[in-house]
């Protein structure tokens, strides 16, 4: 439908991730401490891909993990219970440089929850944030360190990141107009 606009295709997503990986490498000279933690669910395949590109750049394996933030959300009593995904952090985060990875940065509430959730696992040396799409409309003082693409949106629009790892067919990012609200 014409209500859906393609923002990034597969090639553009790959290019954005490659650029982000190089920015991460540039920012963090002590590559041994860097770990990637993807936020369930869209952030996880992106973290794995970024980790893979960084592993090539540094010629060493970059540890990758997944983090689910459902239990730390601030809206749990205002919605149906979210589908909880596994959190799997197979390394000690103490002293590490954690790069949190998510697909879309919107209100910032997911990132706040992720910071809380991560706190229970230890005290990283620092935490950086990488997102594929920043769509604006922040409700908290949170800013990404690495951004694939800034996409101006209206709050009622939806941004969908489709990734092949999640059974979404070809990689793409689309913006969809929200269905008209009956007044």
């Amino acid at each position: 439908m014409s209500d859906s606009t393609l923002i990034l295709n597969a090639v553009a997503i790959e290019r954005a991730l490659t650029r982000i990986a190089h920015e991460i490498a540039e920012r963090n000279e002590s590559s041994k401490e860097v770990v990637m933690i993807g936020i369930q669910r869209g952030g996880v395949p992106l973290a794995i891909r970024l980790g893979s590109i960084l592993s090539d750049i540094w010629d060493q394996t970059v540890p990758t993990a997944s983090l689910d933030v459902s239990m730390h959300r601030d809206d749990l009593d205002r919605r149906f219970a979210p589908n909880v995904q596994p959190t799997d952090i197979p390394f000690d985060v103490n002293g590490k440089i954690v790069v949190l990875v998510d697909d879309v940065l919107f209100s910032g509430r997911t990132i706040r929850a992720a910071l809380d959730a991560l706190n229970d696992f230890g005290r990283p040396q620092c935490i950086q944030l990488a997102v594929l799409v920043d769509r604006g409309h922040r409700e908290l003082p949170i800013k990404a360190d690495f951004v694939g693409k800034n996409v101006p949106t209206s709050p009622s629009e939806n941004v969908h990141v489709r990734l092949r790892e999640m059974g979404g067919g070809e990689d793409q990012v689309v913006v969809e107009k929200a269905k008209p609200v009956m007044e």
Partner: protein
Amino acid sequence: MKTRHDKAAVEARSSPRKTEAVKPLVQQNDAAAPPKWHRKHLLDIESLTPEEIITVLDTARAFKAVGERTIKKVPALRGKTVVNLFVEPSTRTRISFELAEQRLSADIINFTAEASSLKKGETLKDTARNLEALNAGFIIIRHSASGAPHFLARVLEASVINAGDGAHEHPTQALLDVFTIREKKGKIEGLNVTILGDILYSRVARSNIWALTKLGAKVTLCGPSTLVPRVFEQMGCRVTYNVEDAIRDADIINLLRIQHERQRKSMFPSLGEYASLFGLNKARLEKTKPDALIMHPGPINRGVEIDSDIADCGRSLILEQVTNGLAVRMAVLFLVNGGRGPQEVS
């Protein structure tokens, strides 16, 4: 030209190589999919769909992982108050619920019948409404009367979780049992599960039968004929009074305690006779499949329904059931907490 180069890069990246170890992380159910649990209460297993049961089991898996961390606490129920209203005595279920609530950061009121106004003649409804007046959001109820949780769910605003009502149901026990079976066997569908012992008075048996048959297991019931009426065949179970026949092809043997406290008259001659006819001992265990596993909801009567050395052997899942019970109860509390508003937040 540049595009073609990028395309090659994409294809090169999609080869598993360094990402292989972490691949299972993304093969999960869809978080973006609409939430699958819309219930405010957990009153029984009978009314749950197979999908709802699976949702509890999947959620419990995530909560089990929380219990393996250094910090075993999450803030999901922070600021919420949970009342443990145990009108009938209970140790392990109450402790399990209590710890689950603490790990979810809830505030807890413990309420036992012996030390309460129920002894002074207050009705259950009045007791519960008084507790609700303290802004309790959740009531966990154990009661000797079947249907007590359903009654409370009708008269209260709070979420009600059934922690065992008479001989009716004990839903969290059944959920932790199927969670344990699924974890060990990788599936429920097609498994042979034998429930052995006091079926007639057992809410654990009823809830287990519902959960297991909904998920496609084949359930066999066995015990003294006075305690295993044929009427259970209507629930889709096989009934047999021959213990060797019951356990021969079983993948799981779930032993139930003889509930002396619920039996109005003697249902079998003696505990010694029960042990010799139906107790699980070494000789009987040797005739089962080598990978058959043993479960028991506890408390166990060593030497009656199970021999002491079997209760402690490697095929016994009794203590794992206790660990899993905590995760399942955290999951249930987490899910019913959400089952209130349709407001979706992105």
